[in-house]
């Protein structure tokens, strides 16, 4: 089994109102110098064959029309 993490976020150029809202909220709490906030989704899974995860993303985990995805294989010791 391999443990993998899939990070899914709105594609560049697509308005992300959640990201914008967070970006506006942080300075209100005193955190200055924050920009380009994007809010996405995280999927963690254990798979027999990690090479299939990209296809899983294309078909279900992400909508490639509007979202980018990034697959991170997790070190079993760290997971």
């Amino acid at each position, binding site marked *: 089994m391999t443990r993998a993490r899939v990070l899914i976020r709105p594609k560049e150029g*697509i*308005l992300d*109102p959640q990201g914008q809202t967070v970006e506006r909220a942080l300075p209100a709490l005193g955190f200055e110098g924050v920009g380009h906030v994007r809010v996405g989704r995280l999927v963690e899974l254990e798979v027999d064959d990690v090479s299939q995860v990209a296809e899983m993303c294309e078909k*279900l*985990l992400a*909508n490639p029309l*509007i979202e980018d995805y990034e697959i991170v294989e997790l070190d079993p010791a760290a997971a």
Partner: protein
Amino acid sequence: MKFGVVRFPGSCDEVDALQACARYGDAELLWHGDADLRGVDAVVVPGGFSYGDYLRVGAIARFSPVMGEVARFARGGGPVLGICNGFQVLCEAGLLPGALLPNTGLRFLCRRVEIVVERAGTAFTRACAEGERLSIPVKHTTGRWWAPPDVAASVEASGQVALRYAPGQNPNGSLGDVAGVANEAGNVLGLMPHPEHAVDPLTGSADGGRLFESLAAAVPA
């Protein structure tokens, strides 16, 4: 003329859709788990929160057994109307162009809007006149239609935008004020407003009935 209205776990507007259809023809519910359209002449994919909107709106529903049959029916030219969550499902299924994103204001919206009939010739709008305004409610959180620039340009150029929010009334930031978009062949239409909630003057408007009336007229009795 028989309408079929799909019911998914989490659908909530299927009964209103069924009653709207029943004003213009026979109508029955189609269960998501049955790969069978029971010989209906038109399919309505209704609003709601199919499969709890888990993962992404419409993402799971598109894989349900009934959707394989809906896709086959659509490819064969059968009329399919997707309303709100149904629109989202049809986009996820690749039967309609683009996708639905969260409203720019991030809020759930529930209000009446005016939409303009951009194309009157379709199976869904033949009872309407071009440029006619319809008063129909919207109620959604994820209704901002979006498509990549090349797709959006081709959708506009080929006249697939059947319904547009009236100027100044775009509630969700939808690209090009798109309220309803059809496939290239014109037999599949998705829209965010809810025509099934506007079929009786008692609830404020009967304008939504025109879409069901159009569909009933599109299919030979």
